[in-house]
């Protein structure tokens, strides 16, 4: 060990997790967790924290021991207090109902059905870009990334195209409410109620005459002869917006942030070879993924690194920390789209790859792996390719940027730049 390893480690004060510094730059604290407290008992927030790659991977795979924490309005969890969307698939843990609900929609986002939908994704990306491509500048978050994935989901659900802009507006208000609270939350709830009122008759219409869109599929799916209730369908739609829209939205903004601010030296390579957007996506998901935390509840005692996590304990898996684990990735704090110690192609739910390399943890792993992983990668790559083509000589409008941040890491992360102004030459 180098001489510096003799430094006595500083104990972690749990209030550090609530500090603004941690939301802006969680990585120094992640390193202290990995190095000195691989199993950290946060008595202040009544939870345990895992931060090393191997431990997080093992917890994701062993979902019998680490159950996906079930919603409890009186629970100690932040997400319990933010019950905004109504009942949804994420709250059913390891139940058969969860797997059934997941399978109702999961097939839409992978394989043949996804391939069939790619031309529509492509068209929507070009439509949104056309709204600003002659302006010489764009605020990418509000003008593109928070619009495009929602328009895609709206299209998949089969909502009327002329209502997309309204849907985007509700979405933006809802996400701001979730992220920032206070008056934003009040506005978010108004938006949610308007969205519910709007979607009620559409659900009724699908019950009477279902089509082949996603809303019909969710409405008429049956488990043991029983269909979902209206409030469950609405919860499902909200989940698709939040999990399928918000994450892809922020992924696209993060990819552009890293290209124009973190690695402008590498950006020309990506412009010359658009296939490399896939690498940008992968390395973004490792380096500073949109989602940094996942929550689990233990179903048995877990002995690990000399500690014992009790049964029924709340556990945070800081996948944002595992992704920077120097035990797995060389120079983990360097954003390198050519790194040879990371699986660069599309992700696998199993976490296993034929090239033998480890994958990033940004989508989770195992039974609760992100349902939209394949679609997110495709959407982000298609969008970035079209953006790069439309915006010639894309460059930051402002030399300084506050960086990627998160409204609250404890809500799971959702890290992204708040704004991203880009200047470009009209093609």
């Amino acid at each position, binding site marked *: 060990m180098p001489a510096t390893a003799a430094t006595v480690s500083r104990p972690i004060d749990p209030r550090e997790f609530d500090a603004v510094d941690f939301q802006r730059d969680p990585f120094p604290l992640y390193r202290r967790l990995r190095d000195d407290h691989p199993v950290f008992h946060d008595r202040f927030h009544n939870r345990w924290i895992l931060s090393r790659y191997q431990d997080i991977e093992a917890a994701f795979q062993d979902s019998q021991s680490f159950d996906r924490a079930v919603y409890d309005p009186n629970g100690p969890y932040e997400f319990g207090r933010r019950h905004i969307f109504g009942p949804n698939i994420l709250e059913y843990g390891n139940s058969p109902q969860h797997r059934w609900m997941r399978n109702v929609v999961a097939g839409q986002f992978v394989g043949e059905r996804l391939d069939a939908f790619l031309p529509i994704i492509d068209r929507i990306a070009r439509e949104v870009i056309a709204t600003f491509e002659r302006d010489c500048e764009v605020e990418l978050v509000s003008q593109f990334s928070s619009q495009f994935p929602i328009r895609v989901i709206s299209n998949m659900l089969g909502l009327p195209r002329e209502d997309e802009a309204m849907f985007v507006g509700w979405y933006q208000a809802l996400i701001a409410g979730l992220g920032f609270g206070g008056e934003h939350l009040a506005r978010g709830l108004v938006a949610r109620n308007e969205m519910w009122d709007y979607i009620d008759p559409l659900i009724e219409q699908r019950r009477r005459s279902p089509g082949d869109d996603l809303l019909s599929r969710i409405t008429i799916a049956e488990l043991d002869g029983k269909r979902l209730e209206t409030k469950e369908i609405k919860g499902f739609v909200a989940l698709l917006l939040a999990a399928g829209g918000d994450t892809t939205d922020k992924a696209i903004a993060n990819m552009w942030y890293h290209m124009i601010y973190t690695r402008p030296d590498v950006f020309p390579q990506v412009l010359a070879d658009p296939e490399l957007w896939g690498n940008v996506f992968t390395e973004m998901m490792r380096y500073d993924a949109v989602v940094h935390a996942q929550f689990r509840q233990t179903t048995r005692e877990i002995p690990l690194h000399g500690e014992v996590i009790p049964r029924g304990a709340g556990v945070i898996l800081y996948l944002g920390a595992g992704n920077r684990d120097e035990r797995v990735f060389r120079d983990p704090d360097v954003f390198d789209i050519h790194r040879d110690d990371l699986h660069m192609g599309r992700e696998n739910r199993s976490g*296993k790859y034929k090239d033998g390399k480890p994958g990033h943890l940004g989508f989770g792993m195992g039974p609760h792996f992100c349902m939209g992983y394949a679609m997110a990668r495709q959407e982000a790559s298609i969008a970035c390719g079209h953006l790069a083509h439309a915006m010639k000589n894309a460059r930051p409008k402002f030399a300084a940027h506050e960086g990627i941040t998160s409204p609250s890491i404890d809500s799971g992360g959702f890290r992204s730049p708040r704004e991203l102004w880009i200047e470009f030459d009209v093609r």
Partner: protein
Amino acid sequence: MADSVRWLRIDFDKCIKAGECYYNHPELFRRTDSGYPALRIRRAATPAQFREAQEAMEVCPSRAISYEDDSTD
């Protein structure tokens, strides 16, 4: 359909260990330590299994699963 004999198969050259089959359809597939799937059954005995086999084919990103008549077996 009910009368024809259809066998569930995995093409391990095409398989990329995505895991969609065994996570989505654990009645039919099992995860092995290497990440490859293993078959729990070779042919569907019930309509539910038949439907699961169809869905497994659809969600496989590498098209490695087939469920077809096979006279050589």
